[in-house]
């Protein structure tokens, strides 16, 4: 089948997943008996006021009806209004999504760039010194709490060394942000030759990005190594050795045959890393979606939480879809001919 047929098919398969996601989001936010009415009404509300608010929120309707209303709204792009900001949730979320995306991109990009080569090299000399050191480092990376790492980095690089700016936001308060092109302060200021803004944006990016990179590299190293070891033990690599191919060539074969499982793995990791990234945003006051979501959850902003969780889930589904498509393109064994 050709390319557009393939995309169409894949997208179709994703729709039931999307419906499921909307349903789960709906159920999750209601699961614990969180009483939004109580939170909204405040301690001094009377019984009638309670009922009024309940009716306004549509919470007096049976559950299935609530779901249909919610689902219908979602499809139309109405995610309700945040109680804390009194702005439409959709607006809050969309304005912050790009911000988080930038951090995610650089962070996971750097993490993969570090993690994959390390994992491969460890696999080529299993149980050697490099391998054992790398495994320990990787397990250590699994064990460090992200937020703590962020705090320590701020302490060392901001307080002690004065190299980094204070952990507040994406750009210094005294520098005006560049014109909006992509939404990334760094890229936009580079594109508009606004060197002062570029410098500030970069300085603010480094610490959170390195933080995210370290935490995301740990599982990538471990899994890359495991994948590479399996490929090395496979028939094709054993045969390649029997053919007397040069070590460099064999390593190249190992790398290319590991690519697909590695990409799949990174795709699944992104889901978990979005959560970790929220913590980083929180510590560095990044102003992105993660920080918004964390605040909403902790303060019980019902509709915002709903919108946030839904966005995360939709993003994950999108990532899976993209990974599927990438693999279908690079793999000669796929259905795409």
């Amino acid at each position, binding site marked *: 089948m050709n390319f557009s047929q393939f995309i169409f098919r894949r997208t179709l398969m994703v729709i039931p997943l999307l419906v499921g996601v909307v349903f789960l989001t709906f159920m999750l936010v209601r699961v614990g008996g969180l009483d939004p009415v109580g939170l909204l009404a405040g301690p001094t509300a009377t019984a009638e006021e309670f009922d009024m608010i309940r009716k306004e929120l549509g919470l007096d309707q049976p559950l299935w009806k609530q779901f249909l209303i919610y689902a219908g709204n979602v499809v139309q792009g109405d995610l309700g209004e945040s109680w804390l900001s009194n702005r439409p949730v959709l607006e809050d979320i969309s304005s912050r999504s790009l911000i988080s995306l930038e951090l995610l991109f650089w962070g996971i990009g750097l993490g993969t760039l570090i993690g994959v080569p390390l994992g491969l090299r460890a696999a080529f000399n299993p149980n050697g010194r490099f391998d054992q050191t790398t495994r320990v480092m990787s397990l250590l990376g699994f064990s460090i709490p992200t937020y703590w790492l962020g705090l320590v980095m701020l302490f060392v690089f901001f307080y002690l060394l004065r190299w980094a700016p204070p952990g507040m936001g994406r750009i210094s308060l005294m520098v005006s942000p560049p014109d909006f092109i992509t939404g990334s302060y760094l890229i936009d200021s580079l594109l508009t030759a606004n060197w002062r803004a570029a410098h500030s944006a970069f300085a603010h990016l480094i610490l959170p990005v390195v933080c995210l990179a370290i935490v995301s590299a740990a599982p990538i190293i471990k899994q890359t190594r495991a994948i590479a070891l399996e490929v090395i033990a*496979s*028939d*094709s690599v*054993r*045969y*390649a*050795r*029997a*053919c*007397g*191919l*040069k*070590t460099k*060539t064999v390593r190249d*074969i190992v790398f*290319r*045959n590991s690519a697909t499982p590695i990409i799949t793995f990174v795709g699944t990791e992104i889901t978990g890393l979005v959560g970790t990234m929220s913590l980083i945003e929180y510590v560095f006051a990044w102003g992105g979606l993660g920080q918004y979501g964390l605040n909403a959850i902790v303060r019980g902003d019902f509709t915002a939480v709903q919108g946030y969780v839904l966005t995360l889930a939709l993003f994950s589904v999108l990532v899976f879809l993209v990974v599927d498509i990438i693999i279908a393109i690079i*793999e*000669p*064994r796929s259905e795409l001919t």
Partner: protein
Amino acid sequence: MSLLSVSELQTHFIFHDIDNQLREACALNKVNLTLNRGEVLGIVGETGAGKSLTAQSICGLLRPPARIVGGSVKFDGRELLSLPDDELNAIRGADIAMVVQNPRSSLDPLTRIGEQLVRIHQTHTGGSLEISRQKAMEMMQAVGIPDPQGRFTAWPHELSGGMAQRVLIAMALMNSPKLLIADEPTTGLDVTVQAQILDLLRGLVSRFDMASMIITHDLGIVAHYCDEVAVMFAGEIIEQGKVRDVFLKPAHPYTQQLLAATPEQLHLGTKNQLGGQPPDLFNLPTGCLSQDRCPLATNTCQKKPPMVKITSGHNARCHFAKPLKTSRGKKNG
């Protein structure tokens, strides 16, 4: 001087188990064999006898915890066991070529087969890409792949088992090998395809004057396609010689039982059953390795049996080696 001369080859598996005890499994026990150009040697034996391990030991393809602990492998005048891995690597795929089981999964799934043929040629012989491509086409034709031009860009997963095996044979021929080792080359293929592949191999061996070693558990393959045969048991060669001699007049009790166990022989109702477990490689008995299974075993067998010469070129390692005429012998007179 022989092309390949393996003498007293010993390969052991050495490791520590979970109780911190050193364990040593003696998988190859002083294997001796020789091979010359134009000869086809069949190595036959039950699973675990050490057939594939012999080939891997010769080519330096052992993986830990397997290690060669003794012996010598002389190929074309060079001692392979003392060569560093990069020199061995230069010999593998060129002077010594291997054809393995599972051809479809052995080919690199992400490279087109034409490219793989070119790659192995470039690695060992070098020269221009154009020459490599031409040689690839030649070899594809030699192994009987229809439409080599079109198949040049095929992916491995698009090939059938038989076609993939032909590609492996072509790969083996690219650098004009002196020795071709085929490890279970037809296991898993359709019976009709098996015959085609083996005929092909036989023809190529004589056409290119190669030495060839076919490793298999199938006695019929050895009988039809090999000149010489070596029967392996518990990491030892217990009988070897020309196929005619060994199959028509087997001298070792194990070989006799092996031949008797074929379906054609069942109706004879032999009283010598092939029973018992394979010997414990961690705990080999002193003396003859087949003692525990052999119907003729006596106290003498606790002494290591020597290689007894039956006729010229036919030897068997048994105190009681005596050629027995099989029914095949009777049929063929």
